[in-house]
């Protein structure tokens, strides 16, 4: 028999995440929105609340809880601040390759600090030439005197300026078919974050560029096997990355629905709340249907991952559906608010802006369709 409900313990995790988001993250949202920065306080909160420890094994100081609980946490945090959820999700994306491909020494060195929040991570694949075509990577490495020398530039990197532990994909300078992944630490000579992006949405979520200029990386920082780095980077993106975006989308979608229901019940037109008007009801119904469907897709994929299965295809379906649905939900939420939906004191304007950023992250909707089509045709 299939049980689609959370366990009692998962209900408690949801409650804890909601309480955390409402009490610890919500107070920082106005500052993040106003400045487009101010990410430091929420990063600290994420660490203190053990949010970065969720998927890290207990033996390395984590909670060992898995993908479903991570999705629960991201959904609740994104309901309050998609920007914060985005930094958390990409932080997890930087942790994931170390868990799956790291040597025991690397795990011991990095994971306890990442679990406690002393360290913060990211993964850097995307380059100015595009994120959807990682094989066209221009960041190079070459072995020299027992180290690797990296040169290149990565862009649109979430956590670029706050992550002290960055998992970076590079191509062999002498072999365009050989990719390797390295753990770079802020402070390494020749490695630095450069430009900070100003995004239309998810304001307060740190996004920017990093530069490797003759950056010398010790061999012990090679993650996984030399020449097999594409897998190291992409496995995490296909599951943890897309799963994380599902969490961001579900949380935003839920926020849109809640704001719409509240407004529709309070706004009086023609002598009655607009929630009694069928035109508005249809919008709310569509939002609710999409949210229910999206949650089933997302939690199913996470459940497969937790059982040890490969869930990249299921996540591609869920990522496509939930991010597209969240964009529709944000538009409908703004429509329900009428003129107020254009005023910044109403959160729906933020939801519309945030929804824009959901699409391209961890693979555009078109790339998701390519993956899903490949799956269906295989």
């Amino acid at each position, binding site marked *: 028999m299939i049980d689609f409900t959370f366990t009692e313990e998962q*209900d408690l*995790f949801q*409650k*804890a995440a909601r*309480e*955390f988001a409402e009490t610890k993250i919500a107070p920082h949202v106005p500052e993040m929105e106003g400045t487009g920065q101010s990410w430091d306080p929420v990063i600290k909160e994420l660490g203190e609340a053990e949010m970065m420890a969720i998927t890290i094994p207990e033996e390395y100081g984590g*909670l060992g*809880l898995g993908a479903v609980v991570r999705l629960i946490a991201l959904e609740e945090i994104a309901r309050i601040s998609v920007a914060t959820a985005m930094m958390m999700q990409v932080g997890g994306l930087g942790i994931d390759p170390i868990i799956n491909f790291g040597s025991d020494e690397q795990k011991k060195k990095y994971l306890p600090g990442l679990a406690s929040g002393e360290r913060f991570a990211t993964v850097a694949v995307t380059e100015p030439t595009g994120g959807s075509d990682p094989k066209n990577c221009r960041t190079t490495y070459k072995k020299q005197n027992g180290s690797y020398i990296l040169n290149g530039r990565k862009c649109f990197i979430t956590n670029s300026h706050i992550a002290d532990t960055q998992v970076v994909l590079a191509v062999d300078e002498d072999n365009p078919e050989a990719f390797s992944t390295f753990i770079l630490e802020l402070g390494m000579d020749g490695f630095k974050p450069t430009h900070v992006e100003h995004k239309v949405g998810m304001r307060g979520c740190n996004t920017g560029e990093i530069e490797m200029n003759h950056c010398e990386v010790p061999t012990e920082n090679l993650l996984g096997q030399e020449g097999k780095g594409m897998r190291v980077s992409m496995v995490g993106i296909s599951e943890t990355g897309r799963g994380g975006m599902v969490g961001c989308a579900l949380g935003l979608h839920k926020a849109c629905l809640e704001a719409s229901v509240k407004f529709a019940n309070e706004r009086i037109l023609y002598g009655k709340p607009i929630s009694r008007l069928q035109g508005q009801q249809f919008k709310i119904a569509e939002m609710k249907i999409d949210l229910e469907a999206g949650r089933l897709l997302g939690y199913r994929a996470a459940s497969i991952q937790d059982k040890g299965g490969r869930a990249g295809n299921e996540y591609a379906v869920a990522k496509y559906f939930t991010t597209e649905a969240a964009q529709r939900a944000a538009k409908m939420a703004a429509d329900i608010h009428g003129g107020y939906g254009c005023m910044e004191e109403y959160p729906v304007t933020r939801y519309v802006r945030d929804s824009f950023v959901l699409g391209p992250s961890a693979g555009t909707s078109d790339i998701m369709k390519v993956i899903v089509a490949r799956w269906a045709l295989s």
Partner: protein
Amino acid sequence: MLRFVVCVKAVPEPKAAEELKIDPVTKSLARLDIPLVINPLDRNALEVALLIKEQSAAHITVISMGPPPAGDIVKECLALGADNGILLSDPSFAGADAFVTAYTLAKAIEKVAAVDVVLCGRASSDGATEWVGPELAIFLDMPVVTMVREFVESEGTSWKVKADLENGYRLVQVELPAVFTVTQDVNTPHTLSFSGIIKARKKEITTWGLDDLALPAESVGLKGSPTIVSNLTYVESKRECQIIEGTLEEKVDILINKLVEAGVI
């Protein structure tokens, strides 16, 4: 080692207050239809014990009386840091007023054996009688200090607490064992943590019914309750908007008259 008992009540989620329904027969709230949460002031009470436990050796037992779903809030208390939980659940306990609730809780606390400190929230967010704490003290034959907002000295067997009065506070020295009811000013409860939830996996919740407490059925629940609720009604709050016309001076005069008529000023 200090032995705490914290009494917690499952109350309807305040955010779902509009969904509350009154049972027309028993004149009580149909609690099972909406989500239940820990009574907010009981969470303050639990936090008192948890903060003391951070400083010195202590054992915290949480007791709640309610239908089986109330077990969820006991579990939550364990995740917050309590050591073990007891759920008093039996069909015959249903419909208990404050007096019988305190009586039943007292019998359970006696069964727990040695207890140094009993903590309760000042009131529940649904019933709000403020009687359970003091009545519990009577049944347990312990001193009680109500409306405690600060534990000034909480070491040894003689504690000093600051308790609210209408226009000030009392400084009370009390010998343990004792019962305290606390206000929201006593602390800010910490939030539920993921590691706390994991630790709660190994903690035990015991369920006690009528037979476990060896009580006659007529002494508990609705049958044992001397309180008769003659009626319980919904309070409707209506808002009405009036537009006052005229010059600024005229508007102010009209407004003042309206406020006087309404008895506001």
